C-alpha cells in the first residue's frame, strides 16, 4: 500500500523501482533456469507442483488475504478449468493456448455468477458454501456424460504432437505454468496497488465500515472471487493436459485447496510475496515429511497442526513476523 510518490508518475515507472517486482522476477528466473541446468527432469516435476502451489495460494490470497473471505473450495476453479480445457482439446479439436484461455474466461464468468450469490454469506457460512460449491460441481461433473462422467476424460497422445512430441511438450507446459505463476504474482501486485485492491483490503478489515465509506462491497467481492478463478483455471487446463487424463476425484480434490490456505497463512496473508515464500517452505516441509520414516503418513496432520499454530500464534504468517521484527521491511517486501 505504501507507494510513495511513484504511483502518481505512472504505474510502470513505479513498478520497476519496487523491490517486489524484482523479487517476482527473480523467482520466475529461478524457476526457468534451475531445471534447464543439466536438463533436470526430476527437478522440473517438483517445480511443477511448486508453481501450482504458488498459483493456487496467491489467488486464494486475493480472497483470503485481501477481502478476508476464506475460500476452502478454490480447487473447483482448477478442476473446472482442467475439464473445460481438456474437453475443448479432445472433443472440439482446439489448440492448447485457445482451450486454456477459454477455460480461464469460462470459469471466471461462472465464478462471477456464483460469487454474486454466495458472497452474501459471511465468515464460516461463506467458507462452508465454498466447500458446497466444490462438492456440487464435482457431483454434476461426475454425472455429465460428455465429460466422461465419473470415469473422466483421456487425451490422445497425438495431441502432444503440435508441441513437438511428448518430451518437448512437457517442457513447453512447464514454462507455460511458470508464466501463469508469474502472472498470478503480478496480478496480486496490480490489484493490491489499485483502487480496487484498496477497497478489498477495506472489506477485509471491516466490511460494514467499508460499505459506509462507499466501497461497493457486493460487486468488489464478486469481482475478486472471479479474478481469483481465472489463472487457477488456466493452470488446471495446463496441468490436466500434461497428465493427459482428468477425472472428478483428482480435479476437485479438497486437499490441494486446503494446502493452498496453509501456504497463504504460512507465508503471510495479504502480502504479495508471502504465498510464494509459503509455497517454498511448505513444499520443503512436505518433502521432508513424506520421506521421513516417522511422519510419512502424517503429512496432512502436520499441515493441519501447522495451520492451527499459525492462526493462533502468528496470524500474519512469516511475513507478518518479519514485519514485526523489522518494520522497515514492509516497504521492501510487500
Amino acid at each position, binding site marked *: 500500500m505504501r507507494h510513495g510518490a511513484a*504511483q502518481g508518475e505512472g504505474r510502470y515507472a513505479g513498478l520497476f523501482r519496487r523491490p517486489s517486482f524484482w523479487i517476482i522476477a527473480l523467482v520466475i528466473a529461478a524457476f526457468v533456469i534451475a531445471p534447464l541446468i543439466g536438463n533436470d527432469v526430476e527437478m522440473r516435476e517438483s517445480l511443477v507442483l511448486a508453481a501450482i502451489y504458488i498459483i493456487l495460494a496467491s489467488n486464494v490470497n486475493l480472497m483470503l488475504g485481501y477481502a478476508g473471505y476464506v475460500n476452502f473450495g478454490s480447487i473447483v476453479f482448477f478442476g473446472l478449468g482442467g475439464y473445460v480445457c481438456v474437453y475443448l482439446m479432445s472433443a472440439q479439436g482446439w489448440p492448447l493456448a485457445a482451450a486454456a484461455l477459454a477455460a480461464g474466461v469460462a470459469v471466471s464468468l461462472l465464478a462471477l455468477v456464483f460469487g454474486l450469490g454466495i458472497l452474501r454469506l459471511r465468515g464460516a457460512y461463506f467458507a462452508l458454501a465454498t466447500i458446497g460449491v466444490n462438492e456440487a460441481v464435482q457431483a454434476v461433473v461426475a454425472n455429465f456424460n460428455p465429460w466422461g462422467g465419473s470415469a473422466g476424460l483421456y487425451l490422445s497422445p497425438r495431441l502432444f504432437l503440435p508441441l513437438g512430441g511428448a518430451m518437448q511438450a512437457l517442457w513447453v507446459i512447464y514454462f507455460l505454468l511458470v508464466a501463469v505463476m508469474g502472472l498470478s504474482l503480478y496480478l496480486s501486485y496490480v490489484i493490491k496497488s489499485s483502487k480496487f485492491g*484498496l477497497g478489498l*483490503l477495506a472489506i477485509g478489515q471491516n466490511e*460494514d*465500515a467499508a460499505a459506509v*465509506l*462507499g466501497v461497493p462491497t457486493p460487486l468488489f467481492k464478486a469481482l475478486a472471487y472471479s479474478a481469483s478463478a481465472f489463472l487457477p483455471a488456466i493452470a488446471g487446463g495446463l496441468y490436466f493436459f500434461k497428465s493427459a487424463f482428468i477425472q472428478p476425484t483428482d480435479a476437485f480434490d479438497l486437499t490441494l485447496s486446503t494446502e493452498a490456505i496453509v501456504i497463504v497463512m504460512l507465508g503471510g496473508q495479504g502480502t504479495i510475496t508471502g504465498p510464494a515464500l509459503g509455497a517454498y517452505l511448505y513444499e520443503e516441509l512436505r518433502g521432508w515429511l513424506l520421506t521421513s520414516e516417522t511422519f510419512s503418513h502424517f503429512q496432512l496432520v502436520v499441515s493441519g497442526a501447522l495451520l492451527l499454530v499459525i492462526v493462533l500464534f502468528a496470524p500474519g504468517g512469516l511475513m507478518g513476523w518479519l514485519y514485526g521484527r523489522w518494520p522497515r521491511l514492509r516497504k521492501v517486501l510487500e
Partner: protein
Amino acid sequence: MTALLAVENLRKSFGGVHAVSGVSFVVNEGEILGLIGPNGAGKSTLFNLINGVMAPDEGRVIFRGIDITGEAAYRVARAGLARTHQIVQPLAGMDVLENCTVGACFGSENLSIGRARDVARETAVLVGLEDRLTMSAAQLTIAGKKRLELARALSARPKLLLLDEVLAGLNPTEVEHMIGIIRAIRERGVTILIIEHLMQAIMSLSDRIVVLNIGQKLAEGTPAEVANDPAVIEAYLGDPALAEELHGSP
C-alpha cells in the same frame, strides 16, 4: 435556505420495539442541526436509516432532491453523505493515511488512488492527525480514533456529514479541540447533522435542534427554544442533572 436532507415519517421496529416511529425533519444547506434525546430515543437508528445501513419500514429519505430510501450504504456515500460511528470502526490493520484514502477514493468525488491520497493527507491535517499518518489505526488512542472517524468521513468530500457522538469519551481539552474542528468543517461549506450528549457543546454548536424521545420527535427549534420547552424538560426529568444543565445553557 434549501433543504439538503428531508426525512419524512420514518419508521423502524425491531420485533416489538418501535425504535423510530414517524420522525420527520429537514436539514437545511449549510446549517448544523443537533439531534438530542435520552438514551434509546432512536438517534443512532435514525442515522442508520438515513445512510442506508438499514432500510426503514416506512417513510422516505430525500437527499439533494433524490429519494435514497433503502439504498445501499455505499450508494448513499457516493451521493455525498458521510458519517462517523458512535462506536469507532477503524480499518484497524491499515494506517491513518490508508484509512482516509479509502474514504477519499470511494467518496462523492470517485477519486483515483493517487489523488485520493493527497485529499486524505489534507483532511488528516485538518483534524490534527498529521503526525500519525503512518501509525496503524489500531494503535491510536480513543481520541485519535474519533478524529480518524471524522477525517475518513471528511475525505469523502461530503455535502452532508452525520456525526454520531464524536465528543463522547474525550477529555475537556480534546472536546474543545474537536468543537473547533467541527466549526472549521462547517466553514468549508459542509452541512452537519450531529448527535451529541454533551449539552453545552451541542447547544453552542447547533443552529437548530431536534429532540427525539422514545422514537418520536418531541421538539424542534433553536437551542434556546428547545431548552425552554416544557416537554423537553419533562423528557429529561428522568435525569434531573441533565435537565438542569439543559436549562442552564444559552
